[in-house]
């Protein structure tokens, strides 16, 4: 049961990371928003790569 919950959290993290990156890619004007999207991505990527 615990492993199923853990795997589902990884899937949720991957989904959120994909959405954030998609928003970054769609942003056409504001550089500050692009930077914010990338900052939000950092912990998600580190977790998905199982580094931190």
């Amino acid at each position, binding site marked *: 049961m615990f492993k199923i919950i853990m795997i589902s959290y990884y899937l949720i993290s991957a989904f959120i990371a994909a959405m954030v990156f998609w928003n970054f890619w769609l942003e056409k004007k504001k550089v500050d928003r692009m930077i914010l999207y*990338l900052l939000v991505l*950092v912990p998600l*990527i*580190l977790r998905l790569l*199982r*580094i*931190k």
Partner: protein
Amino acid sequence: MMRIKIILLIFLAIFLTISGFQLYQHRHYQLPIVAGPGVTRVVKLSHYLPALQGTMADTWVFFLEGKEQGGKVLILGNTHANEPEGMLATLVMIENGQVDRGTVIIIPQFNHSASRATRPGDGYPLFFEIPTGWGKKKFRMGNREASPLDQWPDPDVYIHYPERQLLSFLDARNVNRTWPGRPNGLPMEQVTYAAMELIRQEKVDLVIDIHGAETMFPVTNCIVAPEKSAKLATMVSLTVKAMEKFDNHVEPSPPKFRGLSHREIGDYSEAMPFLLEAPIPFLDQPTGPKTEKLLLDGRDPFLLRLARKNKLFVPYDETGWPIEKRVGQHLSVTLEILRQYSRRSPERSIILHHVPRYAEVVEKGVGFYFTDPSTVPPDRIYFN
């Protein structure tokens, strides 16, 4: 705009590579543990609960068995992997100890997952080094709780099993809140359950769990003992005070605070538990930067000011609380527990030799007692 996006992505990649590489190195660094002449058998903790096999929660268990039958003691280090004096004291015993009678069982990195986690937000150093006669021995600096990579997500509230007391969400990853554990629970509950199985199957008489605590925390520089261990702990405290001139008072284990080793081991097995605390200034909040130097020498100007205002629970001066004092105290108190127990129960006595006491460790340093792994046959080295 596309050019800006590409530049930003390159910056992100550089940032992730630099930070990620350091964190990756920390998580995958292998500490060589030298099995000294007294080590007769080494198993994994998963021997007592196969569910742990192949996980980061599994860890080495060292047996030092005497020729004569006697009592048995289990000694735990790194229950909290950011209190390294416990691990260092157990490693000194593993490398140097020899048992004449009874059995000494040692788990130097009880929360193995926590030893591979860190607190970058608190500025913890990733590693620390102990000088020895043959160079420096490098250790991972761990965290109090297991890594979220090994147990995630955290619950909103941790409900202790089996007492159902509500504890902090973080305590789900703290092996000093998950005793006595359960075989099908969270990984940290499995770790404590495996240790309980070890205690029950090996018929362990004594359990000594070695920690460090803040100088501003009242439960520091002490032996925490439940009712069944209190008399022995009091004798030990008085003896080290009289013979070795250091203070180590006795704190009663609170019966209503669940999940702690000094409470649950006593309640759920025949063993007598003891939890040892030595002051570790590194863990105090109002200090300067959390450097390797502060971790090892325990000297901090802010704590010195607080000591002058009587805000600390231990004596504190310019000499700080160096690692030699902390490890030395733990070794002396452990040896004294064994001596007092052996006097009280001669048929279950445990005789451990060649482990230094407080004064020797303070004089020679901790590193003096570590062997160069390159001079030891490979089958006597265990990587954790």
